[in-house]
C-alpha cells in the first residue's frame, strides 16, 4: 500500500539551525502515529514539513503522493495542521470560523454543520465568539475546521494541551473516529501514557531525527 507520508533523510533549516537533521519516517493510511521526544527535538518541524511549510534542504519527502521537494504547495489543501495556534479568528463566532475554513475548499452548509456536531459544538456554542471560549472549546473548534476542510492527513501539535480529562478522552475518540474513516493522524505529544490506547505506533524524535520505538 502506498504510504501517506514517506520521508527519507530530510534536512530542513530554520535560519541557520537544522531543525530536522536527517529524519526518515513512513506512515500508512489510517495510522495514528504518536511523535514523542524532548522540547526542541523537531516534532513541530516534522509536522510543519509534512504540511508543506518547510523548505527541504536535503533528502526526499512524499506526502499524499506529492513530492514536496518539487512542489510544496500542492499538498497544502489536503492536510490539516493544528499547531500551537488554532488559526481561528477570535472576533468571529464558532460557526463563522468553521464555515470560513470549510468554504476554503467549498464545503457545503451540511458538511459544516456535520463537522461541528462531530466535535460536540452544539447550537449553544455555535454563536459564541471564539474569544469567549475555553482552551478546550477552541481546540474543538479548530478540529471542526479540519473536518470541514476534509483534511486527509491530520497533523496535530500537542492537541491535548489545555484539555481536562474528559476533553482528552473526547479528543482521543475523535482521532480514532477520524482514522477509522480513512484519515491519517500524526500527533506530537509529551504524554506517553495516552499512547498505548490511542496510537497505532509511537515514534521517538530526538535531535532532529526519528527513531522507531516499540509501544
Amino acid at each position, binding site marked *: 500500500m502506498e504510504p501517506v507520508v514517506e520521508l527519507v533523510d530530510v*534536512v530542513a*533549516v530554520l*535560519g*541557520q*539551525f*537544522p531543525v530536522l*537533521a*536527517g529524519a526518515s519516517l513512513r506512515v500508512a493510511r489510517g495510522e495514528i502515529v504518536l511523535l514523542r521526544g*524532548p522540547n526542541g*527535538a523537531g516534532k513541530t518541524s516534522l509536522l510543519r514539513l509534512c504540511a508543506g511549510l518547510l*523548505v527541504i*534542504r536535503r533528502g526526499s519527502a512524499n506526502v499524499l503522493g506529492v513530492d514536496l521537494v518539487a512542489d510544496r504547495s500542492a499538498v497544502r489543501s489536503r492536510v490539516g495542521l493544528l499547531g500551537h495556534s488554532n488559526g481561528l479568528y477570535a472576533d468571529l463566532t464558532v460557526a463563522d470560523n468553521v464555515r470560513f475554513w470549510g468554504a476554503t475548499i467549498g464545503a457545503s452548509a451540511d458538511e459544516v454543520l456535520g463537522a461541528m456536531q462531530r466535535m460536540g459544538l452544539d447550537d449553544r456554542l455555535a454563536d459564541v465568539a471564539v474569544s469567549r471560549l475555553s482552551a478546550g472549546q477552541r481546540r474543538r473548534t479548530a478540529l471542526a475546521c479540519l473536518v470541514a476542510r476534509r483534511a486527509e492527513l491530520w497533523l496535530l501539535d500537542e492537541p491535548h494541551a489545555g484539555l481536562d480529562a474528559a476533553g482528552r478522552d473526547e479528543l482521543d475518540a475523535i482521532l480514532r473516529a477520524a482514522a477509522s474513516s480513512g484519515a491519517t493522524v500524526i500527533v506530537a505529544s509529551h504524554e506517553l501514557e495516552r499512547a498505548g490506547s490511542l496510537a497505532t505506533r509511537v515514534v521517538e524524535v*530526538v*535531535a*532532529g*531525527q526519528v527513531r522507531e520505538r516499540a509501544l
Partner: protein
Amino acid sequence: MNPLINMDTRATSTRFTSALGLATLIGLGWLAVFGLFLSPNDRVQKTGVRILYIHVPSAWLAYLAFVVTGLASAGYLWKRTRSLTLDRIAGASAEVGVLFMGITLVSGSLWGKISWGTYWTWDSRLTTTAFLFVTYIGYLAVRDLGGSHEQRARRSGVLALLALVEVPLVHFSVRWWRPLHQQESVAKGKLSDLMLFTLFVGLVSFTLLYVWLVMHRQRVAALDDMVDDGGLDRALADRRSEGMP
C-alpha cells in the same frame, strides 16, 4: 559555489578586480587633478561648479545601480535564469546605489545653495531621487528580514520590480504637482570643453568604481551565504549529537 572566489584564500579579489581597482584609482586621481586644478572656474558659479564633477557622476552611478538591481531581480524572478548570484548582485548594487544616492543628495543640495541660493527645491528630479533613496533603504531593510536565501531573494526581487514601476509614477506626479521646475543643470554650451572632459573623466571613473564595488560586495555576500550553507554539515553533526550521553 561561486567560481569567481579564490577558494584557497577566500579573498574577494581576483586578478581582474585588482586591475579594475587600479584603473579606478587612476581614474579618480585624474578626476581630482582635473576637477580641482586643471578645469577653469565657471563664470557664474565660480569654483562651486566643481561640485558637479562629483554630483553628476554619483547621480549617474546611483541610477545605474538601481537599474542593475531591477534587471538582476527580474533575472532572479524569471525561472530560467534564477540564481542566487543574481540576487546578490541586486543586493550589492542596491547597497552601492543607496550610498551614492546619499552623496548625490548632499552634493546636490550644496551645489543648489551655491547656484540657486537654496539647499532644496521641489523639482521633480530632486524629489524622485529623494524618494528612491528612501525606497531602497526600505529594500535593504527587507533583505535583512531573515529567512532562507531564496525567501530573501523572492521578497526583495518583487520589491525591486515594484520600485522600478514606482519611479516613473513618483516622477510624473511630482512634475505635474509643481510644474515650475528648474532648468537642466548642464545646459548645452554653458560648460567649456575642459569642464565637459572633466565630467567625462568623472563618469568613467565612477562607473569603474561601481563595477569594482559591486563585484567585491557580491563576492562578500556570496561568502556570507556560503558560511550559512557551509556551516550546515557542522550544524547537522552538532544537532545529531544532541541528547547523546
